[in-house]
């Protein structure tokens, strides 16, 4: 009997050795298992694998007593051996390393704890994994940036091509009408640069000058922001078109006094709100131009009926009807000062400067998907501009019209003065106070006591005079009132 037991114990030793070695290889995966087995008797099963493993190593190596207790506890769990057998194994296993019992303890407990806890594989932090897949967000970001850069280059080139196509189409007409075509203001001499002035990746300017009637003409090619990907995406929701804006500054003697606009109803409503001159002189809502044969899409804003009659001659009507789809707005005004300035309450002391101007805004056909060929279709519109310049010079109001116009302008000025009356009074008052203060300071700073006295007396006398004057005025008013 005793021999049998010795034989079983001897078998145990190599088996536990093999298990111990096996465990060392699988250290990473079985950390959780180790801990549960160790502390199964002492504590409730705890989930914290990482913190417990160092504790476990220390206790098994240091505490012999615990080792024996564990062995005994484990004996209770054993299903394969009688208590008598394990007690013998106890005494003989003490001289061995504690390490041997790592595996030994584990195996019976493994079956015991298998039902209690699932194996959790600890996650290796992602940056330690040598795979690019975990960086997919970064790759997405960089791809987005590359897409943005690509769109920038493509959009910039497209705008550039459109601008030059426009210029090539219009060059001849412009050069035959203006002495100076293209100027950026930097050259010492006024020579034609013959080139567009690039302000932006989507705005190109051209200044033409040297013609009868007008001071100059500024053409602005306001393209869509094709170079900005955000804008491109926004335009997919809300289509918009490129615009060509032409502003002709007329000489003072070459245009009579009137305010007139024609264009799409939507544009006119907006302009009437925004533009200083249209809001003040054209009080009616945009009227339909059907009376003159204009299509329904166009409406008219005018200062007085006579102006409309004068403006709507056969050629103008022809232009407007044929190219109605490309016209956004046309504005002739002698009181042009741009959009209404948002000024703070107390700052408006004088009317903004006005200039006699013809303002044209055209939409490029294609609604965003334009090609350089579309620029040719804008050429007739430039002819309309030239025609309008000559017409504005020729058109003169008759006597009645002129009277009305002058009255209107006087009325607007008066309204403005009334509004600012309070501000101007305050400004004058503060100026007077400033003067007084300056004088007082001068008196104080006077070193010579004689001079000081004299100046003081002079100031006193002046004040007395002023007071007398005021009293006189008050008396006069009282007399008048009576």
């Amino acid at each position, binding site marked *: 009997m005793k021999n049998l037991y010795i034989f079983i114990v001897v078998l145990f030793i190599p088996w536990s050795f093999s298990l111990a070695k096996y465990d060392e290889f699988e250290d990473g995966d079985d950390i959780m298992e180790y801990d549960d087995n160790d502390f199964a008797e002492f504590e409730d099963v705890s989930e914290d694998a990482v913190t417990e493993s160092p504790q476990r190593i220390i206790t098994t190596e240091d505490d012999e007593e615990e080792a024996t207790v564990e062995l005994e506890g484990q004996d209770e769990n054993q299903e394969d051996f009688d208590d008598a057998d394990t007690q013998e194994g106890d005494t003989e296993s003490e001289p061995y390393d504690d390490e041997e019992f790592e595996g030994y303890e584990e195996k019976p407990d493994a079956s015991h704890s298998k039902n209690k806890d699932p194996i959790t594989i600890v996650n290796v*932090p*992602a*940056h330690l994994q040598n795979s690019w897949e*975990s*960086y*997919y*967000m*970064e790759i997405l*970001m960089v791809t*987005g*940036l590359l897409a*943005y*850069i690509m769109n*920038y280059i493509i959009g910039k080139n497209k705008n550039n091509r459109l601008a030059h196509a426009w210029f090539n189409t219009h060059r001849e007409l412009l050069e*035959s*009408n*203006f*002495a*100076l075509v293209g*100027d*950026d*203001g930097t050259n010492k001499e*006024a020579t034609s640069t013959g080139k567009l*002035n*690039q*302000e*932006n*990746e989507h705005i190109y300017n051209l*200044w033409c*000058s*040297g*013609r*009868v009637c007008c*001071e*100059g003409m*500024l053409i602005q090619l306001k393209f869509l*922001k094709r*170079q*900005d*990907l*955000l804008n491109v995406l926004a335009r997919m929701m809300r289509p918009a078109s490129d615009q060509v804006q032409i502003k002709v500054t007329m000489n003072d003697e070459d245009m009579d006094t009137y305010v007139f606009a024609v264009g799409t109803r939507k544009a006119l409503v907006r302009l009437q709100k925004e533009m200083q001159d249209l809001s003040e002189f054209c009080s009616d809502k945009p009227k339909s131009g059907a009376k003159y044969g204009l299509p329904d899409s166009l409406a008219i804003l005018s200062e007085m009926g006579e102006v409309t009659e004068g403006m709507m001659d056969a050629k103008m009507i022809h232009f407007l009807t044929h190219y109605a789809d490309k016209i956004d707005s046309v504005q002739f005004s002698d009181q042009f000062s*741009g*959009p209404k*300035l*948002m000024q703070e309450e107390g700052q408006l002391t004088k009317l903004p400067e006005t200039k006699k101007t013809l303002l044209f805004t055209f939409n490029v056909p294609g609604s965003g998907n334009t090609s350089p060929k579309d620029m040719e279709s804008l050429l007739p519109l430039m002819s309309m501009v030239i025609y309008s310049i000559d017409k504005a010079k020729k058109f003169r109001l008759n006597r009645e019209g002129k009277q009305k116009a002058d009255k209107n302008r006087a009325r607007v000025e008066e309204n403005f003065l009334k509004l600012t009356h309070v501000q101007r009074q305050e400004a004058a008052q503060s100026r007077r106070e400033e003067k007084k203060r300056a004088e007082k300071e001068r008196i104080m700073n006077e070193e010579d006591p004689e001079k000081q006295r004299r100046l003081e007396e002079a100031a006193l006398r002046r004040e007395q005079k002023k007071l007398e004057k005021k009293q006189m005025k008050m008396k006069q008013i009282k007399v008048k009132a009576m």
Partner: protein
Amino acid sequence: GAMADPRRPGKVARYKPPATETNPALEDPTPDYMNLLGMVFSMCGLMLKLKWCAWIAVYCSFISFANSRSSEDTKQMMSSFMLSISAVVMSYLQNPQPMSPPW
């Protein structure tokens, strides 16, 4: 019949750039906003160590550049761009883990 030549070389006026200083409403505010936003995001990304802030800052500075006027200072543009790039680089040096999506 031939029309008289309308050109008058003697009456040439020079181009004067429209004074946008007096009319700030006419200017497009996008590049300035984007510049400011880019700087705010890169500071957030640097201080709070948020990677997504730094990436958004890079995007903002690109958008600001695309919308900028040619008369504008390239130094400002370059500085905001460099700041956003440095925010991204610093966030990754401090914490090499990849960015986790918000969902």
